[in-house]
């Protein structure tokens, strides 16, 4: 069961993100920057520009905060936390603990906590804060009326520069029968009021893997179906294999290399037809969750009226400076980027503001962008993959530390995973890294810093890491690099020196 739209957001959340009875301001002259969309990119751009003294309008058709707060990272991480708790209770004996006598899963309490967390975090994104920062906030659907004008809720806003940050929405697969039977997406799954008894997840990307594991831990009989032969096909295959093992261990029924070819309803059941290598089977479930990707929100903006080029897959077409084909208009975030992450959206917004308002020449391609899939264990990556380095003609050495060799990971019973750091052969320059660990998302930040600041692996070997921590794995990898420098020649030289001294 899902909640109706009025029940989705508690009063405190709505008060912050779309106050009831809100009256749009009267536009006064031309804005230095009009921002369309108040998700992470739009909110960051509006606040940065306003802080620098620009006259800014922020236009939002729904709720301030965008996917991150309302349907993306925040609600999913909130329920993943509870799912981890249940997994730890289940595995208590592995830690020398006692499994509680009866583990009852209260799904409504899980969702209630999620909403409390949303409300708490929404304070930072509130309309009030934006207004206090001098931003004119408009609610309504924006539409371009010309190269330097938009309309919203019957008002015209003129701008010197504009930023499109309308984000993206979940893709619904064109599977025959799916539209008729209905499916959940990451926009609607957090409205569930009861945990489905049987759930089928379409897609083995980050969203699919995270939610399949979480719902399995809440007790749903969960099936995950992935067209590719591995999960997370963009990640290193060893990382994807560990996730596959983790999902299987949780009891998720895995169908890799499998297509969903049709869906139909039989009584209360949704029947899903699967085909793998020509073999067809049917699975009966209560709910289907589509997690196959996201499509940019470009419709309804009348982009052609402003001379802005776009397409339905790539979204707004921008150059490396995030400028559109209209020199007055920039774009940032999910609506124009391949990597659809909150932190990337915010970083791109800062570039767009600098380039739009201050004649900046900052390039998006110069960013070092980490990302993380919040399964248990997590998978985090930054920089180049080995294949990408090869394509650029860069020879690579990879230094790998298994988490089972990291003391803190062993003491915490979290010894699954690894740290892989790729360096350019013959140097200590870090090209990229992948971490699979319970807290990989936290650990990857040290390596992002190293890549951004040009810190090599030798320098990391000299950084004292607190003991015992799981991040010590990074230091162990750096020390492994240092040991490779101790060639037979240097060993011989060292012996001579020690003998002489």
């Amino acid at each position: 069961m899902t909640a109706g739209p009025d029940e989705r957001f508690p009063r405190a959340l709505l008060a912050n993100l779309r106050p009831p009875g809100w009256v749009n301001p009267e536009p006064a002259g031309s804005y230095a920057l009009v921002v369309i969309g108040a998700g992470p990119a739009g909110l960051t751009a509006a606040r940065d520009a306003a802080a620098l003294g620009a006259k800014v309008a922020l236009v939002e058709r729904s709720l301030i905060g965008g996917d991150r707060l309302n349907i993306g990272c925040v609600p999913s991480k909130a329920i993943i936390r509870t799912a981890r708790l249940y997994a730890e209770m289940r595995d208590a004996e592995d830690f020398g603990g006692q499994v509680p006598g009866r583990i009852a899963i209260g799904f409504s309490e899980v969702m209630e906590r999620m909403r409390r967390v949303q409300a708490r975090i929404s304070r930072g994104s509130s309309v009030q804060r934006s207004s206090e920062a001098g931003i004119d906030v408009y609610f309504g659907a924006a539409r371009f009326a010309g190269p330097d004008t938009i309309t919203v809720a019957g008002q015209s806003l003129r701008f010197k520069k504009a930023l499109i940050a309308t984000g993206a929405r979940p893709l619904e697969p064109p599977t025959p029968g799916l539209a008729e039977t209905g499916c959940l997406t990451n926009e609607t799954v957090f409205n569930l009021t009861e945990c489905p008894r049987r759930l089928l997840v379409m897609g083995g990307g980050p969203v699919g893997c995270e939610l399949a594991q979480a719902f399995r831990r809440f007790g749903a009989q969960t099936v995950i179906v992935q067209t590719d032969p591995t999960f997370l096909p963009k990640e290193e295959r060893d990382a994807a294999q560990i996730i596959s093992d983790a999902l299987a261990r949780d009891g998720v029924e895995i169908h890799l290399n499998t297509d969903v070819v049709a869906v139909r309803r039989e009584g209360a059941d949704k029947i899903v037809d699967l085909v793998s290598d020509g073999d067809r089977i049917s699975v009966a479930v209560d709910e289907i969750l589509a997690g196959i990707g996201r499509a940019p929100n470009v419709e309804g903006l009348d982009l052609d009226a402003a001379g802005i080029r776009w397409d339905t897959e790539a979204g707004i077409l921008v150059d490396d400076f995030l400028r559109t084909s209209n020199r007055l208009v920039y774009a940032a975030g999910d609506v124009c980027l391949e990597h659809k992450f909150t932190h990337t959206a915010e970083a791109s917004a800062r570039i767009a503001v600098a380039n739009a308002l201050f004649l900046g020449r900052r390039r998006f391609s110069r960013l070092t962008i980490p990302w993380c899939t919040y399964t248990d264990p997590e998978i985090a990556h930054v920089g180049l993959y080995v294949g990408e380095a090869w394509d650029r003609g860069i020879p690579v050495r990879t230094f790998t530390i298994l988490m089972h060799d990291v003391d803190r990971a062993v003491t915490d019973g979290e010894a699954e995973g690894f740290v892989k750091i790729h360096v350019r052969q013959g140097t200590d320059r870090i090209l990229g890294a992948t971490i699979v660990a319970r807290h990989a998302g936290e650990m990857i930040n040290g390596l992002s810093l190293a890549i951004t600041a040009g810190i090599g692996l030798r320098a990391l070997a000299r950084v004292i890491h607190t003991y015992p921590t799981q991040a010590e794995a990074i230091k162990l990898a750096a020390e492994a690099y240092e040991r490779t420098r101790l060639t037979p020649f240097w060993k011989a030289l060292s012996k001579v020196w020690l003998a002489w001294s």
Partner: protein
Amino acid sequence: MPEPPVESDDALLDRFQRAAFGYFLDYGNPANGLVADTSRDGAPASIAVVGFALSCYPVGVERGWMRRADAAARTLATLRFFRAAPQSDEPEATGHKGFYYHFLDMATGRRVWRCELSPIDTTLLLAGVLTAAVYFDLDTPIETEIRGCADLLYGRVDWQWARGGGITLRQGWKPKSGFLHYGWEGYSEATLLYVLGLASSAFPLSVESFEAWTKTYQWENLYDIEFLYAGPLFIHHFSHAWIDFAGIRDRFMRGKNCDYFENSRRATLVQREYARRNPHGFRGYGKDCWGLTAGDGPGAGTLKIDGRTRRYFGYVARGVPYGPDDGTIDPCAAVASLPFAPDLALSALRHFCAQYPEMVRDSRLPSGFNPSLPGAGPAGWVCDGYFGLDQGIVVLMIENHRSGLIWQLMRRSPPIAAGLRRAGFGGGWLS
């Protein structure tokens, strides 16, 4: 009482090699040359096991375990079968485009289990075919026909088709659904596949195809050992059963100042080091008890042993260090490392014999045992019966260690040398 004399290394190896060789006589069909995938009742033939059988017959002749005439007769029966077997896109055919289905009915030779048309297993079959073509070099009608059949079987394989329209090779094809979605990612036993494909006269793979595959390699420093990573040991054995990679290098290995033979030695060290560290706390693992590879296992399921809940698997490619690892060791994999790390492999073999005698039946090693699980003795769970691939790799790698026979034969096989050169290999015996 005086201590019984310690069996010499050579006597020990001879005993195990002969026992493994016996598999191919015990479980083969002399009428068509097909050999069963396993010793279990009703097992179909595996074309890869047939390839190992064809390579083992010369070993049997040279070791005096088989008459040359008998070996030639078995070999010719095999090659005649594949020459005449139906090739088409029909689901019940034996092969298509010169490739063969992975598993065939032992009597009829037709596809079973709706299995895939398998380029890699066809490659292992052809490796045996080419071994026979070099070994049976007499001008007798039988041996002449063997060579003729070998030329035909190798020459008609359409390697280009097996790319499925892409650059690199696909892992298989099925009549109803077409090519499998996946290709070869990362270093694997596919080196031999590419070498044979590159050397084809009629349907050669391009050099770009091989290089595109090598771009998926991952050179890793694990446990302070640098090597071209692949988790299961068989990957470091299979191409090496036929090709002596010592001293010859392609572009990738030149860039790493290494060769694939040395790489297999390092992979052996990584396996042993993993077993010593034994991160999951399995019983038995140690410096002389290692060997994670593709092999049989206790079966899919979850059990609580020693207070820990663990998942167990059936036949699966176990690997180091990323798993899967359920505590199952394949002793054949350790023995097959003999050419690369003879001391370590011999030490492991003696350990298996001393610690787990109930696992070693008539000097033949099973495909797996798991001391962490309950069983009749300290070996715990022991694989029921034998797998042809395990017995084949044991015969060939012991022989390569003892005499280098297979390597010497295959140096004289034109497709091997030509394919290696096209792949960019040079130096060593290719000079």
